[in-house]
């Protein structure tokens, strides 16, 4: 896969995009948020220093899921009234973009699903069927971006609160409805255990081997 390169308009550092579909990235040197308009990077603003990540996952972490290997190329940190969680942007080995969410070290892998008729509002316990699987609403969270890192497939600099609805199923399948856009976005995937992802190149923790 070709890796398009450009230079940061702020500090001139070389920027390489690992994923052809990346719409924005963060310059690792000066923390500028850069929007790609096909290699003519437009600087939008600076990203505040992200707090030390609680996650063992970091940019460059590799792993595998359902027969495809992936590498972590981006990150969004969401914040809500009970804490925060990370959405790690994955590039699968076939070029598809995926998401690994890490909420208090509970992991899920999801992929953007074809648009379905999605409700404008949800209640806990409601059931929906997509692609032959029934999901039940398990939590409704109001969250906002706290920070971004790396390559992301969309433009994000909006800090306002957005509703996220999580759904679970008896088989471990997992779904998220993201109300940051209209119409809302649907992500379908699976709840996973840390061991199943065979992660490499992880962050190390002081005092733990």
């Amino acid at each position: 896969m070709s890796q398009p390169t450009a230079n940061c308009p702020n500090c001139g550092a070389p920027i390489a995009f690992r994923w052809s579909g990346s719409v924005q990235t963060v310059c690792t040197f000066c923390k500028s948020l850069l929007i790609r308009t096909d290699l003519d990077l437009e600087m939008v603003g600076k990203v505040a220093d992200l707090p030390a990540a609680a996650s063992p996952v970091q940019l460059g972490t590799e792993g595998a899921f359902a027969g495809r290997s992936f590498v972590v190329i981006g990150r969004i940190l969401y914040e809500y009234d009970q804490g925060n969680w990370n959405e790690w942007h994955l590039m699968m080995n076939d070029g598809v973009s995926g998401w690994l969410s890490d909420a208090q070290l509970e992991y899920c892998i999801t992929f953007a699903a074809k648009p379905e008729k999605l409700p404008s509002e949800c209640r806990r316990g409601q059931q929906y069927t997509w692609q032959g699987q029934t999901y039940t609403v398990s939590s409704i969270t109001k969250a906002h971006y706290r920070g971004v890192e790396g390559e992301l497939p969309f433009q994000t600099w909006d800090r306002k609160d957005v509703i996220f609805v999580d759904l679970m199923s008896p088989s471990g399948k997992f779904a998220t409805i993201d109300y940051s856009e209209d119409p809302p976005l649907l992500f379908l995937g699976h709840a996973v255990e840390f061991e199943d992802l065979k992660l490499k190149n992880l962050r190390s923790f002081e005092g733990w081997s």
Partner: protein
Amino acid sequence: MSPNDPAGPAAPQVKALNCPSCGAALTLRSFGNAVSLVCSSCHSVLDATDPDLKVLQKFKAAEDEDSPLIPLGTRGSLRGTDYEVIGFQRRTIEVEGIHYSWHEYVLFNPAKGFRYLTEYDGHWNLFSILRSLPEDDSGASTVTYLGEVYRHFQTADATTTFVLGEFPWRVRMGESVTVSDYVSSPRVISKEGTGKEVTWSMGEYVTCGDLWKSFNLTNEPPVPVGVYENQPSPLSASVKSIWAMVGMFLIASLLLLVIVYVTARSESVFEQTYSFDAASHDEASFVTPVFALHGHTSDVELTTIASLNNSWIYVNYALINQDTGRAYDFGREVSYYSGRDSDGEWTEGSNTNIVTIPSIPPGNYYLRIEPESDPALGVILYTVSVKRDIPQLIFFGFGILAILIPALFITWRAMNFEHLRWAESDYGTPPDDGSLIGTLENLASNFKSSNSGDDE
């Protein structure tokens, strides 16, 4: 990441901080995953997501509050993963005016996440949050998860009555949540919360022996009291299989019975009637003609039938092998009395006596017979008959008893165990869940209620 990139966000480290309320040193062990943190000195509940650790709540801890049996900061290996104890809480429920408390330990691994240990009356469970949804038959008393049926055990409102350390959620002293437990020993599914927020978790019973070994603890673990809701019963699971085996053994015994009866010779080898004059002073002993006992070593059945009328006869027998000179000595008493009194007619004794002589090898035998009686009784007629290789039912009876008694004992013990388990539940007695024990319990309680009904 290319080697020219500067470091990303700082690598996580264990942080040392100070309580904003009392200044005491705090320890954060979960690398930014903590949502609440409790100062052990002043018992302030702090917001761990706030860099300033805003004080959310302050509480007073009781003087005699239990301290964690597994101290905060202890590490242990469970299911191949190292975990560190980072938080501890006590939760209390009220049942019929009595308060019951249990303790929970928050376990942390920086990659694998959180697990929870609960302890009640010395019984321990290791909990994980469920990632798949159990099928909650709302209204019914069961929950199905991964094909296994869990029975409702108890629903109660649990109040947080003590907190210490770190938690990955907002803790609040005095907060109350509805908890329902569904058991399928050795597992339990716990449903916490209602309406807006429901969390499902599954616990598995662990022995304190295993736990103390995992955490390398040197103090004495608490002794478990009674039977806990999901405590595994070594017996209950076996009961059905034991009775299946009993069935098979009974069939085998029946088969054996048929074989024994079919293969036994059951032959009559000698029969003779004698007359004994009890008053005579002549030598009473005599010998019978020689008869052959055929076949393999087996029993010999000797029957003495005497015509008695309120009299008795005692016969000394010796079964003697003509060739080897081995004798089998025994004596049999035959007595029979009858009469009439105020209650009606009565009889005592019998005019027939059967004895089985064990393990007689084949050969030529004769009997030496010496009768005795009261001279006043005069002449007594008696018949001696000898049969070879007669099957005896009594050993089958013993065998069946020998098989039934342990099976009954094991069933009784298992029922006892389940009684103790369900005594603590919302129901008080074991449920009728189609299992053998459940069915027996149902029959027993029906029997009891019908009996007490008769008294009214």
